[in-house]
Structure formats: C-alpha cells, structure tokens
C-alpha cells in the first residue's frame, strides 16, 4: 500500500469564542493524485489549508508529511507544500514578474545565477516566460494566478494547495491554469484544490471531499459521494452521476 504524502489525524481547531472551525478532520492524500475539496462558504476549507502549512496552529491533532509530523520543521514542510491564497494579489511580493519569482530562491540563500535559472524555469512552466520584465500590477487575473503558482514552484513544491484558484477567471484563464495543473500532476505532484465549481474540473479528480461546518461530510470518488453534494451546499452539476468525467472546461 502506498503511504500518503500528506495526512491529517484528528485535526481540531477551536476559536477563542468556543466555536469549532475544524472538527476532527482526518484525511489523507496519495502521491500524484488530484483531490478536490468542496463545501459551502465558511465550512472551514481555507482554515484547513492554513493548518497544513502551519500558518494556523491546531488545537488538537497532527499533520503528517511523508509520514512524519510536519511541525518538526516548518521550513522544510513549506518547501514541499505550495499554497496558493484565495486572493492572488495578496501573494505578489515584488514589482516585476521575474523579481517576484526570485523571492523564494533568494530567501533560501541560493546563489544569484542558479536562483535566476530556477525562477525562469518556473515562469516558463506557468507560461509566463515572455512576461519576465512586466510589472506585476499590470498582469491579468489569470496571469497573476500563474505567477503565484510559479512563485511556489521555485521552492520545489511537490504538493500544491490551491484555494479557489478559478475565482474570477474567464474561460481561457481557467483553461490555461487547468492545463498547467494537469501537467504538474503528470510530473508526479499532488494537487489539493478547493473549489465550488465542480463543472470546471471534476473530470480530472481522483477524489472529491465534501465539507460541512468544519467536518468532512463524505470523501471518495466523485460517483461515490455524488448524492451528498447538495448537502454540502455545493451546486451539483446537471449531469448523471455516471457522467462526471465530462465535467471539465478543457476543450476535448
């Protein structure tokens, strides 16, 4: 049996006012899989992702990265997990595209020439190689998203945590982003993607996890959890359960 690359065991987060943000969340992600997390607004998906990279500390429970507790060394863990925020602008740290991609390698102390090579490769992977000198403030929504992705790829992330990455993107934007994700998955990376838009990407998923009020309502292959989708406050696409493989915005 394959060991999961990423796993949480009994993750609980209790807020100061006593409310539960996460309620015993145990879930695991296998290497190279494409995992979709869906649930109503406020169901705790963002909070869950923040725990995975150590931005928020759990009240109880553990996070295992390749079988070892992630909190042993957050620096190392954060290199392996690339987290894309819900708000693309909030993750852009520099004025030009290349400078932004260089931020990670530079702060890892990588010598300049090698850092530049890494940054340029990541930009190329994300289709931004022709925009290196452009101002980040002039990028389109889709390009900002891809710049965020390039930024986390420079650290060598093998797990990508994506918080509603399709928000505000048009058809070409979603298509371009999805293509890159699928490429990255083929190269062996593990994808954990939060979204309400099952129509856009469900076809590519290995698993679908439904959230409700900080708990996991159901998890499994899309056809296994199909009936539970509406209960999670998510729009169930208007196709039959057996046709979930048609749900993608990539042209076929």
């Amino acid at each position, binding site marked *: 049996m394959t060991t999961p690359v990423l796993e949480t065991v009994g993750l609980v987060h209790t807020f100061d006012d006593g409310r539960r943000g996460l309620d015993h969340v145990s879930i695991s992600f296998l290497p190279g899989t494409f995992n979709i997390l869906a649930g109503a607004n406020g169901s705790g998906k963002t909070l869950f992702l923040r725990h995975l*990279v150590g*931005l928020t500390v759990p009240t109880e429970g553990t996070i295992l990265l390749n079988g070892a507790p992630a909190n042993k060394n957050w*620096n190392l863990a*954060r*290199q392996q997990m690339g*987290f894309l*925020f819900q*708000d693309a*602008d*909030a*993750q*852009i*740290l*520099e*004025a030009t595209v290349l400078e932004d991609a260089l*931020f*990670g390698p530079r*702060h*890892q102390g990588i010598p300049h020439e090698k850092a530049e090579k890494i940054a340029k490769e990541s930009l190329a992977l994300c289709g931004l190689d022709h925009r290196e000198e452009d*101002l980040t*403030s002039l990028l389109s929504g889709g390009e900002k998203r891809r710049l965020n992705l390039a*930024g*986390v790829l*420079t*650290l060598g992330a093998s797990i990508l945590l994506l918080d509603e990455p399709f928000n505000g993107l048009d058809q070409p934007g979603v298509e371009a982003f999805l293509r890159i994700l699928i490429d990255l998955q083929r190269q062996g990376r593990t994808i954990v993607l939060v979204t309400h838009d099952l129509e856009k990407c469900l076809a590519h998923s290995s698993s679908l996890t439904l959230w409700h009020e900080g708990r996991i309502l159901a998890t499994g292959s899309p056809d296994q959890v199909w009936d539970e989708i509406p209960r999670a406050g998510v729009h169930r696409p208007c196709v039959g359960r057996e046709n979930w493989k048609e749900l993608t915005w990539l042209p076929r």
Partner: protein
Amino acid sequence: MASPLIFHYKPGQDPVRRMPTLIKLPLAVAFAVWASLCPEWGLFPAFLAILYAAKIARISWISFLRLLPPLLFLFLVTGILPLLQAHNFLDVLADGLLRTFRFGLLLAAGHILTTTTNPATLAATLEKLLTWTGPQASRTLATMASLALTAVPGILDRASALREAALLRGWNSAKKPWILAKIWTLPLLRVLLERGVWTAWSLELRGWRSLKK
C-alpha cells in the same frame, strides 16, 4: 527658477488620474504633512510612494529633473552655507540633506498632482475645499472618515496576507525584518488608492455630489 507647480496636465486612464480630485488633493496634502514632519524612517515609504505613483501614472522620470534647480538652491542654503561657521560639519551636512530630501518629496508630490489633475478641476476643488462651510464640511469629513474606515480593514488584511506569503516562500522574519517595509509599501498604497476610487464612485452613485460639475 521654474515653478515646479506649473500646470502641465497630461490626461490618461490610470488610477492616479481616475481618482477624484476631491480625494486626491487631501491625500496629497496629507502626504505633504507626512513628508515634512514624519520621523526619518517615514521618508522611506514616502519616497516609495512617490516612485510608485509616478510609475502607475506613467510620468517620465526625466520630467522630475525640473525639480532639481530649486532643490540645489535649498541644499546650498541649508546644507552648504551653514558649513562656513559650523564645527560639526557632518551633522550640518546630514541635516541639510534631510531637509532637501523632504522638500524634494513635496515638490515631487506637487509634480505628480499637477501632471495627473486637470488644472481647472484642481483650482475648483482647491477653492471649494478652502471655502467650504458647515454641513458640506462635515460631509467632506464624513467622506474622508468612511474612506479611512473602508480602507483600513482591507489594508490590515492585505498586510497580514503579504507577510504570510513571504514566510511561506522562505523569508526569515527574525533575520531580515526590513523586508516587510519593502513588500508592504507598494501593495498597501495600491489598496488605498483603489479604495479611494471605489469609495468616491459609490458615494457618487448614492447621490453625493462631487465637484466635477
């Protein structure tokens, strides 16, 4: 000596130009107060703010050269002349440089304001702001307050997100705390500018009279 405030308006569509004069002018005044009175560390964000505003308004760097003559003059008066009778040369020199730099920021802000604002609107706004009375004045205050109130939470959120984004990308907060100043200044200023534009628009849509007419 050419007046740095000579009107040389160039129209355009960027956020600096789209921002209503009623917001932009008080912002410029606030900037001027800040640049004149702030502690020394405050000059750095002020300088970045100028660079950024000039960049998004696409004001040519060369056009800033016209600010040099008055600056050189000021430096002569505040930095060089006192040297003739001073004992602590370095202090006097540094003091003169600092004053000149502050004054340079004011001139640059004036340059940006006049390049991005229609002179007629600017004059009308200035006049209105200066002669405003009773209820209207309180309305302006309310506008400014609501701008501040809507912008501040957004700015705080953005600031914390940027900090987290830097942490996730390997920034060592204990070793290089100053990186924060660098990654915060421009984006936060941008949030403020954009909120300014949106607040003014939403006020206008709800029937509040701007000074355009």
